[in-house]
């Protein structure tokens, strides 16, 4: 269970990195497309086939952020109950909490762009918490090898 905890925490940290890469990919692609004469307005943005290099970044960011990462966060919390990682439940709760903040800041940022800054900042909180959780699980594994209770 401890390694499950560690692997989930690592996956969440990697997902945060993917999120950052995807959104910059999308925004850069959009900028490049506009540079080439593309025109963006609400109708274009909502058109299903808006086609520029990087458009997939928006989709991946949305699906990852609103579905996959929250589920990973929940899984980490559940696994933390069994993983016997010192402070593991608390760390998993922090990870999940920052995922919740991240989702809401991401959505609210559509209407209030300054909240987008919180979204960017909180990404580091989430990433650090996930890395710290993974590290704690690994260290715990080294210091106190798992003993099977009779």
């Amino acid at each position: 269970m401890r390694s499950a905890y560690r692997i989930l925490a690592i996956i969440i940290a990697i997902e945060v990195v993917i999120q950052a890469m995807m959104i910059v990919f999308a925004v850069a692609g959009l900028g490049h497309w506009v540079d080439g004469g593309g025109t963006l307005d609400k109708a274009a943005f909502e058109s299903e086939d808006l086609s520029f290099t990087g458009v997939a970044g928006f989709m991946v960011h949305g699906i990852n952020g609103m579905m996959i990462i929250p589920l990973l966060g929940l899984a980490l919390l559940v696994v933390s109950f069994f993983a016997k990682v010192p402070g593991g439940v608390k760390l998993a709760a922090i990870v999940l909490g920052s995922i919740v903040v991240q989702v809401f800041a991401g959505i609210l940022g559509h209407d209030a762009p300054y909240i987008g800054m919180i979204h960017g900042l909180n990404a580091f909180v989430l990433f650090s918490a996930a890395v710290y959780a993974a590290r704690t699980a690994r260290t715990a594994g080294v210091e106190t090898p798992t003993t099977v209770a009779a």
Partner: protein
Amino acid sequence: MTEYVRAHLRQIVAIAATLVIVVPLAWMWQASRMPGSYSVMDMGYVDAGGGPVSGTGHHGDHAGTISVSDLVADTDRAADVVVELTATQGTVTLASGREVEGFTFNGTSPGPLIEATEGDLLEVRVHNEDVEDGISVHWHGVDVPNAEDGVAGVTQDAIGVGEDHVYRFVVDDPGSYWYHSHQMSHEQVIRGLFGPLVVKPAEPDSRVDVLAVTHTYNGTRTLNGEEGDVLVDASPGQVARVRVVNTDNGAVRVWSNAPYDVLAVDGRDVNEPSEVVGRRVAVPAGGRYDLEVEVPARIQIGGSTAIVLGEDPGPADEPGVDLDMLSYGQPATLPFDPTKPDRIFDYSMGRRPGFVDGKPGMWWSINGHLWPDVPMYLVDEGDVVLFRIENHSGEVHPMHLHGHHAVVISRDGEPATGSPWWVDSVDVENDETVEIAFVADNPGIWMDHCHNLKHAAQGLVAHLMYSGVTDPYRLGGDSGNEPE
């Protein structure tokens, strides 16, 4: 036993904590899954808006019930205009020459212009040649009898490959409208299964009539299928009526180098329009704005397409401010009293985590509930209805009510002071409240949904239901009907 509990306390707590998280989630997941097919009548919960719930209502005796399929135009009357539409699937060549994968009516997209004169009975014979998922045709903005509304699974069954369906309705109100599929609409509309419908006034209009159907195909913005500037031959001094029809999922901004008047919105004339300078109009998804300009003029429709009337006057700078229809034109007496509504409904849109049909995500909510647990707004025929549409979802929603035109009463508490602003499609911005009112004068079961059709497919759909109306059709995977 106590020994056992003590020894395994940690595991027991862990299992209990897991169950506390997993069981409600599993239950919510299971509860959200949709049956193979279901009736729209079984969706959600009845919201009577403070009015009576009984099937009989207070406007006389409606003891009997009537089926959606019987709510038709006068069957004895002959059609004044007959149109045939054939839907196909495949490669579409736009007027600009660009080829896209999608759908056509009569081989083109946009489909052919359907023209009729006010008072005509229009008969449209629709044939589905090879659109695999089936089709239907909704007459966006025309307040048709319910059976002709063209919503698969609500007012008819989807028209399968090789099948035919005839729509018959009287067009009473001159103006700009459009038609589009309401089967798998979030895919079929964006990929081309739509066309314009214009109802001419009985008294001929001397203006140059210009159609400007805006649509984004595969990321490319078009006007009537053309790209860039669309040139219209007209002589200086002539007056033109430009009918902007937004068939996309989001608003389009329209502005001009020349002063213009907004003659009509959503097929209803503006009372005493005045000249607009230094303002742009934002045409919501599904909405239509008719603008009057004097030639020569450039009507810019979004950044990349324009209608150029006569000699091109050159680029038009985009004004930074939208024209506010709330105060545009002159007030006029309404045909009903919106201050004494029989029913007041809240349509509050939000966004929250949950499951829709077993899929986890951040979903649109209506009054806090996720689809399909959405309100079924119940009215009696003759009711004056007030809708308070609120948006706290983080994104704009272009709200479209089928079968009725509503008048905008207020926005964020600010009352309308201009011409009666009649709409069938209206943008409700985030953290905004728009109040609209109408008379329930068209019995049936009517969709009331977001016309960002992806949002509708994600569950931002409710219905207006008249008491005493029953629905024989079914929705869902097994029925073949997927209106969104």
